[in-house]
C-alpha cells in the first residue's frame, strides 16, 4: 500500500519530472532532482547512526531539509515524530521521552537539543543518490502525531504505512485530477496531519508544493501565494479564510481548480462568499480526525445551490472510498437516519492506536460485526446523524455537548443562533464552571458588539432559557491554535 501509493509515485515524479519544481519555499524553488539530492544526503546520515528504536524526531522548520527528512526517514523504514520549533522545549522533550526517540533531525541554525543524538541537516553535503527504499511491512509506522491529551500529557496517534497508503488510494478515488502542472498550497503546520495531504498529493503527481515560512503572517502570505503564483489546489481551515474575509473584494483567483475546507466545521455563509473569490474552483469540505488518517468523509459544495447544513455548518457528506461510517448510541447500537449519536469510522485508514496508552485504546476503539464481517471502529467523539440521503450532518463535538440543569445542550446550536443575529461576526460558546461549581455558558463574540441587549432578545426568542449564555464577552479577535482552529481553551481561560 505505502510503496504503491506513496513511494513509487514519488520516484516516478523524480524520474519523469526531474526538472519540475517540487517545492517553492520562501520564494525559492527546488526541483525534483534537487529534492532527491536533499533526501539522499539526509538518508546517508541517518544510516550512519545505529538505532534501536524506529521513531525519529524531526524539528519541523518547513524548509527543504524538513521535507526531505520525512522521505529520508521513510526510505529507511522509520517513522517521523514532528516537533514544532515554536513549542516549548519541555513539551518536545516530553514527546521525545514518550516516543523513546534516540535521534533528532534538525535544520535549525542552532539546535535546542543537547542530551540526544542530533543530525544537523543543513550542514550535510550531497555525495550520491541514495534512494532505494528498505522493504518493510505496511504495519510499520509512518508517523506519530502528538496531540493534547485531556490528562495534560500529549498523546501520540500512530499512523502506519498502511494507513497513509490507504488514505492516498482513497483520496485518489474521490476524483481529484492533480497533474504535474498543478501548483498546490501547503499551509498547515507539519505537526497537524492535513499537512501530510498537502505535501503528498502534489509530490506523488510531480506538482509543486508552496509552503508558508514560519516568520510570515499566515493569512496574508497565503493570499500572496494564491495571487502571485496562481495556485490551483489547496486545503485551508475556515478560520484562516475568515481572516481574509475583510478583503474578499480584493481577492480573485481564477486559477484555483480545487479548494478544500477542513480542520473544523465549514460555515456555509463564509463559503458562499469565498466561492466568489475562486470563481472556477470546485469546493469540498473534508472531515476527519487524525486517528482515521487526515480525512475520512467529504462533501462537495454546490455553487448557488442548496447546500445541506446543520446549525449553519455544511454537511460532511459520506465516507470516502474504502471506509465505513456508522453512528452509534451510548450502548454502541447502530442508529437509523435522523437519530443523533457518535460517529464511528472503520477501514484501513484507522490508526492501530495511541502510542503506549492501553487505557485510551480500550476507550476509543471497538469491534462490531457488520454483514458477517468484523470491523474495528474508531469513536470520533463527534455528534452526528445521517439524513435520509445518507449524508452525515455534524452537530458538534460530544465534549461540546454539556448538561445544564439536567438538559443536554449542543454548544453549536447556541453559536448558530448567535451568528445568525451577528451576520458575519464569529461567535463561540464555551461551557465553564462557576464559583458554585455549576455549569454556565459564556458566549464569545469576535470583534466589537454594539447590540448586546438585542442579541440576548434574539437568543431568547430562539432557545429555551437554560441555553441562554450567562456571560457575553466581546471586543477581541479569536485566538487560533496551531491546527488553524479557534482555540476554545484559550477563550475559556479568559473567563478565569
Amino acid at each position, binding site marked *: 500500500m505505502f510503496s504503491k501509493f506513496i513511494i513509487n509515485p514519488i520516484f516516478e515524479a523524480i524520474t519523469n519530472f526531474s526538472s519540475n519544481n517540487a517545492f517553492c519555499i520562501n520564494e525559492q524553488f527546488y526541483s525534483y532532482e534537487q529534492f532527491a539530492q536533499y533526501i539522499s544526503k539526509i538518508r546517508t546520515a541517518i544510516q550512519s547512526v545505529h538505532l534501536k528504536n524506529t521513531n525519529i524526531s524531526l524539528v519541523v522548520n518547513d524548509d527543504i531539509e524538513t521535507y526531505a527528512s520525512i522521505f529520508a526517514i521513510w526510505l529507511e523504514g522509520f517513522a517521523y515524530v514532528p516537533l514544532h520549533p515554536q513549542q516549548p522545549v519541555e513539551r518536545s522533550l516530553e514527546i521525545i521521552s514518550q516516543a523513546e526517540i534516540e535521534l533528532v533531525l534538525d535544520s535549525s541554525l542552532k539546535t535546542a537539543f543537547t542530551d540526544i543524538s542530533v543530525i544537523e541537516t543543513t550542514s550535510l553535503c550531497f555525495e550520491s543518490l541514495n534512494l532505494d527504499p528498505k522493504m518493510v511491512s505496511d504495519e510499520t509506522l509512518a508517523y506519530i502525531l502528538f496531540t493534547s491529551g485531556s490528562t495534560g500529557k500529549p498523546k501520540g496517534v500512530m499512523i502506519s504505512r498502511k494507513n497513509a497508503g490507504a488514505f492516498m488510494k482513497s483520496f485518489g478515488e474521490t476524483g481529484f485530477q492533480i497533474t504535474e502542472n498543478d501548483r498546490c498550497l501547503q499551509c498547515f503546520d507539519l505537526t497537524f496531519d492535513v499537512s501530510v495531504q498537502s505535501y503528498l498529493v502534489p509530490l506523488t503527481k510531480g506538482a509543486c508544493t508552496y509552503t508558508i515560512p514560519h516568520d*510570515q503572517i499566515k493569512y496574508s502570505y497565503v*493570499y500572496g501565494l494564491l495571487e502571485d503564483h496562481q495556485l490551483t489546489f489547496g486545503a485551508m481551515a475556515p478560520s484562516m479564510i475568515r481572516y481574509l474575509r475583510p478583503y474578499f473584494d480584493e481577492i480573485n483567483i481564477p486559477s484555483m481548480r480545487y479548494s478544500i475546507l477542513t480542520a473544523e466545521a465549514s460555515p456555509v455563509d463564509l463559503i458562499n462568499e469565498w466561492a466568489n473569490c475562486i470563481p472556477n474552483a470546485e469546493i469540498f469540505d473534508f472531515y476527519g480526525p487524525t486517528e482515521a488518517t487526515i480525512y475520512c468523509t467529504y462533501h462537495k459544495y454546490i455553487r448557488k445551490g442548496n447546500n445541506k447544513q446543520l446549525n449553519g455548518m455544511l454537511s460532511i457528506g459520506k465516507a470516502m472510498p474504502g471506509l465505513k461510517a456508522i453512528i452509534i448510541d451510548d450502548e454502541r447500537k447502530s442508529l437509523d437516519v435522523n437519530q443523533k449519536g457518535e460517529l464511528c469510522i472503520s477501514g484501513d485508514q484507522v490508526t492501530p492506536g495511541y502510542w503506549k496508552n492501553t487505557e485510551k485504546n480500550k476507550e476509543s476503539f471497538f469491534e462490531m460485526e457488520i454483514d458477517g464481517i468484523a470491523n474495528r471502529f474508531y469513536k470520533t467523539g463527534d455528534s452526528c446523524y445521517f439524513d435520509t440521503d445518507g449524508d452525515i450532518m455534524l452537530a458538534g463535538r460530544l465534549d461540546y455537548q454539556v448538561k445544564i440543569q439536567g438538559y443536554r445542550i449542543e454548544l453549536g446550536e447556541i453559536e448558530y443562533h448567535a451568528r445568525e443575529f451577528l451576520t458575519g461576526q464569529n461567535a463561540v460558546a464555551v461551557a465553564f464552571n462557576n464559583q458554585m461549581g455549576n455549569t454556565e455558558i459564556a458566549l464569545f463574540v469576535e470583534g466589537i458588539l454594539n447590540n448586546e441587549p438585542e442579541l440576548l432578545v434574539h437568543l431568547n426568542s430562539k432557545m429555551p432559557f437554560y441555553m441562554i449564555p450567562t456571560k457575553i464577552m466581546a471586543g477581541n*479577535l479569536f485566538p487560533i491554535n496551531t491546527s488553524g482552529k479557534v482555540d476554545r481553551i484559550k477563550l475559556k481561560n479568559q473567563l478565569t
Partner: protein
Amino acid sequence: MERTEITNVLTAIFRKILAKDTLILSDNLTANDVENWDSLTHMLLISEIETEFSIKFKLKDLNKMRNVGDMIETIISKL
C-alpha cells in the same frame, strides 16, 4: 509625518498590542522575532494602525510587509 515619528507611534502600538513594554522596533524585525506576534495579533496591530493613522490597508499591502521596515514604508505611501 517623519519616519521617526511614525516609528514612535508604531512602537507604542506594538508595545500595547503585543504586551511588551520594552519592545524596540527595527526595520528588520519580523513576526518570528517577537513572541505573540501571530496572525491574530497581526490583525489587531493592523486595525490599530489603520485607526491611528487614518489609513486603510489593502490585502496586497499586508502581503508585501515582510518586516517592520516594509510596514513603515507602506504607511508613508498611504499618508
